[in-house]
């Protein structure tokens, strides 16, 4: 379930975040990274698309990225639902279930990571073949992107609904 609410009363009286996956900051972090990757790909592609033709050497990358993203999102949504229904486990854990990307996310983290790695490595590969300066620049962007989750998640945690925070406690 992507809703952070259990009842209509809780939803209609909510004071705070009401958006989907508001109780799953990890997933929101992944979404932000994926959307940033799409944006970066657009900037990259805008140099190579001319007169109705693309000079990109591997146009299948984007399709693979979308497929990997969709799979990871669907799996995250399913996992989120399972976690919500398994209250006993979440009560015993006694802590927020936010984990670093790639460490505790399981299959969905792996898939999302794979999607990002594919996109990143392909972009690096393409630029690397053309210009060492471009490659270095994209490498630094990629390194910055990989640091985003650890910086972003603490802030996202504080934006959860009170109800969602209560549930996690």
């Amino acid at each position, binding site marked *: 379930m992507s809703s952070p609410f259990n009842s209509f009363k809780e939803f209609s009286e909510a004071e705070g975040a009401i958006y989907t996956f508001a109780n799953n900051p990890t997933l929101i972090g992944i*979404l932000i990274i994926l959307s940033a990757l799409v*944006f970066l790909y657009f900037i990259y592609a805008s140099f190579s698309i001319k007169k109705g033709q693309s000079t990109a050497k591997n146009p299948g990358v984007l399709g693979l990225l979308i497929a990997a993203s969709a799979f990871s999102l669907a799996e995250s949504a399913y996992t989120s639902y399972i976690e919500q229904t398994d209250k006993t486990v979440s009560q015993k854990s006694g802590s927020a279930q936010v984990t670093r990307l790639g460490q505790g996310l399981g299959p969905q983290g792996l898939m999302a990571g794979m999607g990002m790695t594919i996109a990143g490595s392909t972009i690096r590969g393409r630029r690397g073949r053309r210009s060492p300066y471009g490659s270095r620049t994209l490498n630094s962007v990629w390194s910055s992107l990989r640091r985003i989750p650890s910086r972003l998640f603490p802030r996202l945690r504080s934006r959860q609904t009170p109800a969602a925070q209560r549930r996690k406690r």
Partner: protein
Amino acid sequence: MTPEAQEFLGTFVSESYYFYASVFMLLIHAGFLAYEGGASRSKNVLATMVKNLLTLASVGLAFYFFGWWVYNAFPLFPLTGGLLGPWTNFSASETLTAMQPYVEGSYPWSDALAPTTADHITGVFWFAFALFAMTTASILSGALIERVKIGAYMVLSVVLGGFTWVVAAAWGWNAFGWLLSNFGYHDFGCSGVVHAVSGFFTLGVLINLGPRIGKYDAEGKPRPILPHNLPLTMVGLMLIFVGFYAFLAACLVFLPGYTGETTIYNTPMTLASIGVNTTLALAAGLIGAYISSKADPFFTISGGLGGIISVSAGMDLYHPALVILLAFTGAFVMPKVAILVEKMGIDDAVGAVGVHAWCGLFGTLMVGIFATGYPQGEGVPLTSFGGQLLGAFVCTIILGFIPGYGTSWTLKKLNLLRVSREEEIEGLDVADLGVEGYPEYATMSFVTNQQVQPAATVDQQSPKGSTGFVTE
């Protein structure tokens, strides 16, 4: 300020909000007018624009005579009750009692639609819904350009804008609708009840209407019929974007006495979410179509609209990052759908099936994946993929494709659907309206006449003697 004045201020704010949102929605029609006019060839530009303009008349009047009543009378029919009207005993149940003022306020003879100090709101809501209805019919208008009879389009626009989309709204976009109360259907920004209905209605009509002369070669391969004024088309879509902000803002409910903003399903939402998510959907949609179509200008700007439609259904609930991904995906696939439709022998002049049918269907279904489990009232099922799938089926097939195909098939059998071959070749500006859109320019008729007639007689030989050139 006295309590009475404060109370009236609340009424006035609500009244003004919907009034001005609806006025801005008229920009959608200004945009469609420019969009379709630019997409047509120069010999059809005026007829195309006049056809679109007449949508305001046909749907506006149909919505007054019966459309508004359909919206208020159909929510329970056929699953949870019957059609509501003067024959209904409204005291039979609490639900009927709650619906009574809405139904009685929707008759053409109702005081609520006439000037009355007892009701400031109903007429403004009628105005907003009438603009929704006109938008729905305008989507159909562009796809049929350059070969449909104006009378046939008027009938089709009344069926679509005055009835079928209104039934979809009554069932899935009304607090009493059975798609909501029995299946938890959620469609905040009308991906299904407006865009999917009109997109699939258009598909049904296009199958019977057939392609424009010259669209396909002898082997059945599609040939491009280029817009005569692509810049005008792009400006039109920019106007449509502006109008869509108002369209989505008018989907928000704020009534006198409310302490917060809600959706039409009485769930909480914010106006800010419309501002942020519409803007991001527009941006991501442009990107998706730009990459997918490899910078085709027509598809790229249509992608902005496709992006918005792809997230409209769940815009009140989606996180902005999710909006970007969904809008991008919907718009990325859109050009592929449009090209597939073209390869199937269906001549959709403006890509309405790709933008509205595909993105509307996609947007409706995505709520069932990315906004599941939301409660929308006590005893109402949670939002789910099953509920969205059923709603999508109702919107696309039951209220979209079948009525579109059926109505156009009937018109075709009566020989009322399509203009004659001679009229189509001559151009509908001259055939329908008797004037050319660009009388002083070197249009095809001007050039043709110049080649076969002495230059000095061109002015007398051109249609209606309207060319202003004197050549040596």
